[in-house]
């Protein structure tokens, strides 16, 4: 009997209350009728299945009823419902999107086998400011031979090449890799095979592995691509494999992987730093052990080859740590901001739900009086709140999925992962989690609180309808919280905006407006000698300059802000500095006209000239900072500079340009005449970036310039056509997105705070109508009453602003690395934030204050 009574608890309470006794009576009668042990067993089995089935059905019934009635209530007040749904969607969407990106970049394991065991190795030249420098082929070979900590070690370098053999000749970014790279990463190919150490050996046919994207776009996704011959810069390669779409190594732009072979001249120069190294730690070897071992190897190499390796160390870092500190900080800031948003959204929701439940206090009390159990009331309110939050969550989730690609652009990621996180179960799980959190904390708790106060009191007409002091206090602190969070967001957004302006105000050193840039990559070996290149440049530049609307044109090795490296050690005035103190300069080859095209002023001396012949004295132009560093206060013209392959005479000084982008210090610049480079020397530096200064819209010139290049050589592929201004803008694109996102957050937050404040005061004025009426009757002036309401709003705002100032100062100090020198205590920003909050507070209080002033004392008191 007792067992069955316990079983009854499976039913909803209301059902149990109504039919519990009946059920027990039936059960009693049946046990009485069931004779013998067998009948009893049958009876119990019967009872068990019956109870479980009908209890479940009863719960489902009830839930369906609740949802139905919730839908009815919800649709009866569409304004309220839409507000709740939108607020929930906003908070949930923002948080889910921010979490999704953070998860993608910082938390999710890299798409390789046991990615925690993957490390990257660098030449550590901290003594001159580069702790993560590429290494040279001879050093890499020594590292690989001497080290015992790694299960495998591979080297690679990015390499772009003209690709012939696919559907059309194209210029593509790829990588040269040693065969071990694929083994180290452990990703199997989608088709065919990967490169292996056999491919490292000279004399074998060169295999080629292509990316999934290249396979589908250029090879039609056909399986017979395997075995196909492809020319990479005129060198035949055989396609041996296709990688899966998720393989983005070393970067997302990588379209193919060709063998990297350390032959002949590559092994000669130990100071030619261009190799990236990736390795897999052996099982049981810790990162620290590997570091210690590599330090030892670095010391040996320093001793054996002091000219190249003195004071060099070896940096070993986990692959995951490739995320820069700035990117990490940005992501955490984003997550923090989105949590602020969620908090504000939740407080608003709670506030909305509280006031609504208070509005319905009478209805609930009536229902309680009519015998609806408290659990029934709570259950129904819960269903309503959860229903609204769930709709909000669904909309927020969809919105999050839509904005995630945009948000990803916040962080320039150097990780070998997909650009945009996959919209998979994790995003869904995140949305669900945030929604449940929101629903429970701010839907369930208010319901419980109010249900506990739903009693007969609500029926008494003269009662101040259910405004308990505790509830008022709770709502007040919610409003204070919202203003605090808004303050933080406004200050951070303001500081980042200041930083953005400051970065944008940086003079890049050249004029980007009206300049068209494009890459005309020169197929090798056809153009490996200087003569044919010069002929090509002469013809292209000659034709382009004669086009209508073209002011000037020129060629350079790499565009500023696109290629940031290209740094060489140099010797000044013949003083052979020891390698560890070698001075570094950014090296570029240029044709005449380049400086004029970008309007980089030649401050002293002259530009390079067509008359600078290969057999004449080699000339160079240096940047101002170069002069400041090496010959302060002296006349640089005629002085001598030497680097790897030659001795140069300084013939001119140009203004510095921001090679490394607006936010970073760039090395001093050294420009060589393209015409004077010895045949086959530093081919990689051969100018292939054409810059054209237009009188009007540079884009209008594209077809004409294309035709000019095609006339010079139809086999030269043209790529990367874009205005220079776009490149400069791209340099601040991440910042612009950051400011926009944070600005949107801040704007929404302050708006929500205003709504919250308004809601609170409006409610309190409505609840205190009688009191206000009495005040009027006792001779209070409208101004006094207004001051009463406004004063309350301002006190709350003041609290919020005060706490907000402290928290904002803290948040800003953590953001310092992103502020580009803007003081995290920038008073203008703080003053602005306080101003905005005050204005919002005044706006939020205005309507309730007006309503309070219009209270008719007679009406108010008559109701008593």
């Amino acid at each position, binding site marked *: 009997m007792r067992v069955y009574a316990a079983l009854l608890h499976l039913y909803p309470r209301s*059902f149990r209350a109504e*039919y519990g006794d009946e059920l027990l009576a039936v059960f009693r009668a049946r046990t009485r009728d069931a004779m013998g042990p067998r009948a009893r067993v049958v009876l119990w089995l019967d009872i068990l299945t*019956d109870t479980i*089935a009908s209890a479940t059905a009863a719960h489902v*019934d009830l839930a369906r009823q609740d949802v139905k009635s919730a839908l009815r209530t919800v649709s009866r007040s569409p304004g309220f419902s839409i507000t709740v749904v939108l607020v929930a969607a906003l908070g949930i969407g923002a948080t889910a999107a921010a979490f999704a990106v953070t998860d993608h970049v910082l938390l999710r394991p890299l798409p390789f086998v046991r990615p925690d065991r993957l490390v990257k190795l660098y030449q550590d030249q901290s003594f001159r400011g580069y702790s993560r420098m590429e290494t040279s082929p001879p050093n890499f070979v020594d590292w690989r031979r001497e080290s015992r900590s790694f299960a495998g070690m591979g080297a690679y370098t990015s390499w772009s090449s003209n690709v012939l053999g696919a559907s059309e000749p194209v210029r593509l970014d790829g990588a040269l890799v040693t065969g071990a790279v694929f083994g180290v990463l452990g990703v199997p190919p989608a088709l065919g095979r990967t490169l292996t150490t056999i491919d490292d050996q000279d004399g074998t046919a060169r295999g080629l592995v292509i990316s999934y994207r290249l396979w589908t776009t250029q090879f039609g996704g056909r399986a017979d691509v395997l075995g196909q011959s492809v020319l990479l810069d005129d060198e035949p390669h055989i396609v041996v494999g296709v990688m899966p779409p998720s393989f983005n190594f070393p970067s997302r732009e990588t379209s193919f992987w060709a063998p990297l072979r350390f032959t002949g001249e590559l092994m000669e120069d130990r100071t030619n730093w261009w190799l990236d190294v990736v390795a897999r730690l052996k099982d049981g070897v810790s990162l620290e052990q590997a570091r210690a071992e590599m330090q030892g190897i670095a010391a040996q190499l320093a001793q054996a080859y002091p000219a190249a390796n003195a004071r060099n160390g070896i940096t070993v870092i986990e692959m995951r740590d490739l995320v820069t500190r700035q990117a990490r900080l940005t992501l955490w800031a984003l997550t923090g901001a989105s949590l602020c948003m969620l908090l504000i959204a939740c407080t608003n929701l709670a506030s909305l739900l509280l006031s609504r439940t208070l509005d319905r206090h009478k209805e609930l009390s009536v229902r309680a009086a009519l015998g609806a159990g408290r659990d029934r009331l709570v259950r129904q309110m819960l269903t309503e709140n959860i229903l609204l939050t769930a709709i909000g969550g669904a909309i927020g989730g969809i919105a999050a999925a839509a904005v995630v690609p945009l948000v990803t652009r916040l962080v320039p990621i150097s990780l070998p992962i997909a650009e945009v996180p996959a919209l998979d179960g994790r995003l869904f799980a995140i949305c669900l989690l945030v929604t449940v959190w929101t629903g429970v904390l701010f839907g369930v708790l208010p319901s419980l609180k109010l249900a506990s106060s739903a009693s007969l009191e609500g029926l008494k007409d003269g009662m101040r309808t259910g405004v308990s002091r505790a509830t008022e206090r709770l709502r007040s602190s919610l409003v204070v919280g919202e203003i605090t969070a808004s303050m933080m967001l406004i200050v951070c957004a303001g500081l980042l905006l200041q930083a953005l302006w400051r970065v944008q105000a940086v003079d890049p050193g050249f004029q980007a407006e009206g300049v068209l840039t494009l890459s005309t990559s020169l197929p090798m070996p056809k153009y490996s000698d200087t003569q044919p290149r010069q002929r090509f440049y002469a013809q292209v530049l000659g034709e382009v300059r004669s086009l209508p609307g073209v002011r000037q044109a020129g060629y350079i090795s790499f565009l500023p802000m696109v290629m940031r490296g290209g740094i060489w050690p140099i010797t000044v005035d013949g003083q052979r500095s020891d390698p560890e103190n070698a001075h570094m300069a950014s090296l570029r080859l240029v044709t005449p006209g380049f400086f004029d095209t970008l309007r980089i002023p030649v401050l002293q001396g002259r530009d390079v000239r067509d008359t600078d012949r290969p057999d004449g004295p080699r000339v160079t132009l240096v940047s101002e900072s170069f002069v400041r560093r090496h010959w302060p206060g002296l006349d640089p013209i005629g002085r001598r500079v030497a680097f790897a392959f030659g001795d140069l005479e300084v013939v001119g000084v140009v203004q510095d340009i921001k090679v490394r982008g607006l936010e970073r210090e760039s090395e001093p610049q050294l420009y060589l005449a393209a015409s004077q480079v010895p045949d086959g020397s530093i081919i990689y530096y051969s100018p292939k970036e054409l810059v054209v200064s237009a009188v009007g819209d540079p884009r209008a010139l594209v077809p004409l310039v294309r035709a000019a290049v095609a006339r010079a050589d139809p086999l030269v592929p043209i790529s990367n056509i874009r205005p220079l201004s776009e490149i400069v803008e791209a340099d601040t694109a991440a910042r612009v997105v950051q400011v926009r996102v944070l600005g949107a957050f801040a704007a929404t937050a302050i708006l929500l705070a205003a709504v919250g404040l308004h809601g609170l005061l409006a409610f309190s004025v409505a609840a205190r109508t009688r009191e206000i009426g009495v005040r009027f009757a006792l001779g209070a002036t409208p101004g006094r009453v207004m001051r009463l309401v406004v004063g309350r709003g301002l006190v709350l705002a003041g609290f919020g602003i005060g706490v907000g100032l402290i928290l904002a100062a803290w948040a800003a100090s953590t953001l310092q690395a992103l502020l580009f020198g803007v003081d995290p205590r920038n008073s203008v920003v703080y003053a602005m934030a306080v101003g905005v909050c005050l204005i919002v507070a005044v706006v939020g209080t205005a309507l309730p204050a007006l309503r309070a002033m219009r209270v008719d004392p007679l009406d108010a008191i008559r109701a008593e």
Partner: protein
Amino acid sequence: MKSKSDPEAAMPLPSAVFHILVSLAEADRHGYAIIQDVAARTDGKVRLGPGTLYRSIQRMLEQDLIAETETRPAPDADDERRRYYRITPLGRQVARAEAERLSALVKLARSTGLLSRRV
């Protein structure tokens, strides 16, 4: 709960509901009596569990198919604690409609030879 005056709206009836209606069509009964009556009518084939019974009763009350009755049977047969139920006119209508629906189905089965006419 709004009463559903259209008997068709409740079609087809869950079998427990139909059995309860049939049982109450004959006489007002309390819960256990319904169980016993249904079992007797179906040669013990249908034994309603108490949970199923009262959940059905709850829904049937909401749908106005049955009502609790105030009039008690003869005092000697009465158990004070028990609740008695009677069928409403709507319940009768619904039960009849359901029976017609079922008999139409049987007719259909016969006309296709699926069921022999003897049954």
